[in-house]
């Protein structure tokens, strides 16, 4: 199956040794050769010394999901040799450091061994432990360039961009690349059958991670207050917001900031700050992961019931508790949909890629202000932290933020008496005022029972009127959240349903199933509360497969709760080991079920 512009390889290294930048370099070089490429970083929750892997998939047809099999492994971590050797497909390759002999037990006769004395080359050519360790990564990059026929001009250009201001580093890196390249050319039959050929399929694309894209979306949407508590895998979102803030939001003359970013003492405080800022009229957001969402829940209920706009990014990781903080999952779907105590239901958006992290950041602020409520952008570690090839972003300069129903001082002039929680327009959305607007606009925000005038009450009827209106308001958002994306095929017999970052695997699975004679429709849900089309799709099919990355089939449960479609109409396809989904997993589950076997 594998061949030119269609293969996968992975680097097995020790974290903290500088392999990440070399792996990024490899991926970017392939991208610049015009060939579709994706990278998955499988890393430990650790600073230095534990095993880490980086998988790169090259695919001329643009399939970007995690690869089913690995054609070549660069094994540089003796601690994981055994499993890395085992990871190579039959007929594949193992690149290893031949400075030391390979233990006999690691030899497989269906794998080709390519020994390069990386360590020895570095000792002979570079001074100092740290430079030798770092440059070893560049040496293997050079070796892979020779094996895969990566354009050395492209690699050279990238090194020059990266080290343009550091001549000594530039020279050392060039030398390291050349060492690895030359050794491979001399000792192996380069290039291998799995190799690259220039294409022109990435011209309109970029390579970016979802957290960076989301932060960029926040800056472009006009968010001015960000509060957060560091937590993997969401941290890089706020760090990117800081980077873009420094670049785009510093007053050119005074250097003063047009944004405020606060590192809170915990997630409770982060949520409170964002709610306080939203109440005062700013577009405010926080980024967190499952444990943070748990801590924020009391405040989320307050914002829901007090009707305060605010945006939460949840970059999901494997839970519960600290769980596996550097592994991906879709485990917070339900926790977010109904977050907090009492009767609550929240607007949630489910991006499938960094491109949607960018656009949905904007959508989230618009929805939060229009509906005066918390809005969640539910991403995950795979989307948030991995580099994805996506279409280049653009921004509509005619975009005007939807600030919702906010009464200005002038508006208040024409209002006889301002009543904060009255359903004036029949859509469940009341009018609000911002602090400072004027004496006539003042009201009291509270989590305690309140009536239409925002006055305290313990009266049942007043309470019912309020919570029922809020329920109506949130249900109204079903038609305003991004509609589901539906892919139909002629003569499809089954339906697949999924959301979020599994999209690539689903698209690939559809093609693989079709090749087996199984036609399937596919719906990717993009928002909650579910749009009417969601129930329609479920009902149109005799049964559907609901593919999701958690143990308890949370999406299926939500579909059952919200649409009334019986659970046995929806076959769960669950993948929750912490790694990005592969197409094969979906194909296997669907075919097994269709053949009558247990899923």
């Amino acid at each position, binding site marked *: 199956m594998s061949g030119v512009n269609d293969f996968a390889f992975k680097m097995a290294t020790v974290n903290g040794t500088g392999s990440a930048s070399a792996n990024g370099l490899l991926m970017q070089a392939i991208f610049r050769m015009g060939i579709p490429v994706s990278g998955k970083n499988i890393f430990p929750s650790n600073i230095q010394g534990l095993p880490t892997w980086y998988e790169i998939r090259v695919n001329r047809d643009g399939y970007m999901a995690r690869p089913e099999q690995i054609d070549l492994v660069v094994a540089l971590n003796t601690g994981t040799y055994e499993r890395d050797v085992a990871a190579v497909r039959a007929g594949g390759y193992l690149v290893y450091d031949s400075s030391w002999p390979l233990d006999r037990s690691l030899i497989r006769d269906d794998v080709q061994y390519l020994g390069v004395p990386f360590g020895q080359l570095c000792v002979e050519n570079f001074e100092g432990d740290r430079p030798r360790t770092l440059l070893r990564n560049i040496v293997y990059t050079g070796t892979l360039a020779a094996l895969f026929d990566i354009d050395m001009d492209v690699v050279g250009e990238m090194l020059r961009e990266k080290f343009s201001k550091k001549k000594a580093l530039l020279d050392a890196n060039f030398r390291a690349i050349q060492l690895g390249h030359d050794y491979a050319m001399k000792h192996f039959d380069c290039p291998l059958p799995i190799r690259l050929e220039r294409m022109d399929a990435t011209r309109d694309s970029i390579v970016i991670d979802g957290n960076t894209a989301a932060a960029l979306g926040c800056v472009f949407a006009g968010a001015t207050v960000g509060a957060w508590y560091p937590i993997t895998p969401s941290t890089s979102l706020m760090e990117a917001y800081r980077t873009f803030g420094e670049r785009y939001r510093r007053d050119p003359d005074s250097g003063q*900031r047009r944004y405020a970013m606060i590192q809170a003492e915990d997630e*409770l405080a982060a*949520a409170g*700050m964002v709610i306080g*800022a939203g109440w005062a*009229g700013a577009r405010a957001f926080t980024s967190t992961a499952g444990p943070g969402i748990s801590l924020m829940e009391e405040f989320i209920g*307050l914002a829901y019931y007090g009707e305060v706009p605010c945006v939460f990014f949840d970059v999901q990781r494997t839970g519960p508790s600290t769980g596996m903080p550097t592994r991906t999952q879709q485990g917070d779907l339900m926790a977010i949909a109904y977050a907090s105590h009492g009767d609550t239901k929240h607007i949630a958006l489910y991006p499938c890629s960094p491109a949607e992290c960018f656009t949905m950041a904007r959508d989230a602020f618009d929805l939060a202000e229009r509906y005066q409520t918390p809005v969640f952008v539910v991403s995950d570690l795979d989307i948030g932290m991995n580099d994805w090839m996506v279409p*280049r972003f*653009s921004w509509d300069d005619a975009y*005007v933020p939807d600030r919702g129903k906010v009464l200005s001082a002038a508006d208040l002039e024409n209002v006889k008496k301002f009543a904060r929680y009255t359903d004036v327009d029949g859509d469940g959305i009341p009018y609000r005022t911002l602090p400072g607007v004027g004496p006539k606009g003042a009201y009291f925000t509270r989590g305690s029972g309140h009536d239409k005038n925002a006055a305290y009450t313990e009266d049942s009827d007043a309470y019912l009127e309020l919570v029922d209106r809020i329920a109506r308001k949130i249900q109204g958002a079903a038609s305003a959240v991004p509609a589901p994306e539906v892919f139909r095929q002629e003569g499809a017999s089954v339906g697949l349903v999924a959301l979020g970052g599994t999209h690539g695997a689903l698209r690939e699975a559809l093609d693989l199933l079709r090749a087996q004679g199984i036609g399937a429709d596919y719906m990717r849900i993009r928002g909650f509360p579910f749009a009417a089309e969601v129930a329609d799709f479920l009902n149109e099919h005799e049964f559907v497969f609901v593919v999701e990355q958690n143990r308890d089939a949370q999406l299926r449960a939500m579909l059952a709760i919200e649409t009334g479609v019986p659970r046995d109409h929806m076959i769960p396809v669950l993948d929750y080991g912490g790694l990005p989904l592969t197409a094969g997993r979906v194909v296997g589950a669907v075919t097994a079920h269709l053949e009558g076997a247990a899923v």
Partner: protein
Amino acid sequence: MTSIVKPPVKHPSLPRNALGLTRRDYEGAMSTLCAGCGHDSITAAIVQAFWELDVPPHRAAKMSGIGCSSKTTAYFMKQSHGFNGVHGRMPALTTGANAANRDLVYIGISGDGDSLSIGLGQFVHAIRRNVNMLYVLENNGVYGLTKGQFSASADIGSTSKKGDENEFPPIDPVLLALSLGATFVARGFSGDKAQLVPMLKAGLLHNGFGFIDIISPCVSFNDHVGSTKSYRYTREHYQELAPVDFVPLRKEITAPAEAGAGDAMSVAMHDGSVVRFRKTPEDYNPRDRDVAYRHLRDHQRRGEIPTGLIYINERSQDLHTLNKTVARPLVELPYEELCPGNAALQELMEEYR
């Protein structure tokens, strides 16, 4: 949070401030706290302070958490926006609101349960960030709404209404604030409005976190013999360590000159107003944290409750100064000044290729 609307009756002869407003214009709903509650006296002092400062009510924001103290934001300034949040989290709400709109006058009302137990972390970090707000801790040593449990400010040996003795050492918010680097630290007593009003005014004008711990007896659950937070105990033990007068700039233009450098007994505020210390021990200096700390400890060892404006740093820099935020409130920046636009985006996209 019950509240009863007061009849809007105005007496024509009521005195008016520079805005032409009477004290009634700074009042709120009728208090539903117990008759004689210390908190109501504090509310009255707050009304007086805002009125005297000529703060337009709608330019103030009243923030609170949960508890008897936190209910009181409904009892003053009905023309201000108010936010009664969740227990112990008022500082976060205020920090966020202040980040968004730095031009409002923020007053946060909290209690000893709200600040020293469930909200201790938030209290501490608001001090660290020097959020520009007045933080009033209405301290009665007891949980009132849940009927009489000890709070974290209850003294060792103080007894509950039922007769139980508190065995755990108290958290002293004034010592805590001082040691955390707070820039304005004061203590008052709800029964001494004359001392309270100037301190509240100074705290409101302080450029940063103005902290006032106010002993405020709970008549229902902590005003008995054996309690160290009762009216009687507080009256018998409180000592004026550093009581102040407050002199607004415009009323005494010569004040800044009077408050010469090195004159510890007059301190010029951020806006040029002056806080004048009425009587302090000779070796006292409210600008010296170590001296303030030593005096506090000396009084406490003698079983006294020292009150007054205990420490002030007139060069205090608030969160926005430290963040270098633009002077204009973030909420007022037009969207065009916030969005870099598509041309900038396309330039940026080249860096992701």
